[in-house]
């Protein structure tokens, strides 16, 4: 690089900052023993992945990631934590097991994935890039993906009704127990 370009430097530096944020917070999700800390680290992981979608010029996916994951799934997970633990206990800790074999399996899978991705796979990338994604998604949804779109809407409907039915407190079950 003969002349220093601040825009390029900032572009790459912000990418690496978000990558480090994702890796550190994802590691905290699985290594920290407090459940609440895990849930809040997941918040940073999800925001960082949303920033990665911005870098991949998938703007609509980035916004959807924030709305669905941070606004929906993370709140559901926090409700799950709150409803399935006695809040009166001071620190919500979770036990761990299989620590050493899991670490070995994780490192083996990570190593083989990195080896495959970096050294073995020759990805054929195209010369053209997607630039924005909002308008193409609209076209795709009403042309190529009409049937999957309708099916997935029915699936979401069924899943939400099923979840509400399953989670309902059933007095007969607890009475017969």
């Amino acid at each position, binding site marked *: 690089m003969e002349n220093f370009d601040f*825009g390029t430097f900032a572009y790459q530096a912000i990418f690496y900052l978000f990558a480090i944020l994702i890796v550190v917070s*994802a590691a905290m999700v699985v290594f920290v023993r407090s459940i609440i800390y*895990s849930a809040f680290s997941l918040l940073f992981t999800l925001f960082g992945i949303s920033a990665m979608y911005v870098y991949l010029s998938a703007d609509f996916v980035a916004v959807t990631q924030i709305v669905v994951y941070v606004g929906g799934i993370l709140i559901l997970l926090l409700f799950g934590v709150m409803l399935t633990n006695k809040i009166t206990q001071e620190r919500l800790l979770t036990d761990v097991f299989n620590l050493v074999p899991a670490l070995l399996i994780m490192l083996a899978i990570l190593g083989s994935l990195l080896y495959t991705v970096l050294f073995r796979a020759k990805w054929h990338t195209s010369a053209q890039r997607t630039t924005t994604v909002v308008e193409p998604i609209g076209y795709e949804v009403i042309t190529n993906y009409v049937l999957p779109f309708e099916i997935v809407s029915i*699936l979401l409907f069924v899943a939400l009704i099923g979840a509400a039915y399953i989670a309902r407190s059933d007095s007969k079950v607890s009475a017969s127990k």
Partner: protein
Amino acid sequence: MPEIGLNHFLVLSAILFSLGLFGIMTRRNAVVVLMGVELILNAANLNLVAFSKFNGTMSGVMFSMFGIILAASEAAVALAIVLNIYARFKTVDIGEIDTMRE
């Protein structure tokens, strides 16, 4: 502006996947296991969107949208099951729920 290469996203996704797998294998609390599943789904979505960008087509983005929808319904149903397990067993420790084990 020089672009970030495809391998960066694939390496990040591989790290996320293995961390999620580690969480699933080691944690005893069912809700934290679900968090590991969410990490793995996010790694898959990141891969799909990355390939879609570097391929110039929309298939990966559409797949990732469907993946996000499926993750939402999965989380709702799984948490309903976890709440039901808690109502019945008074614990969500997956090591202690062994009624179906012979």
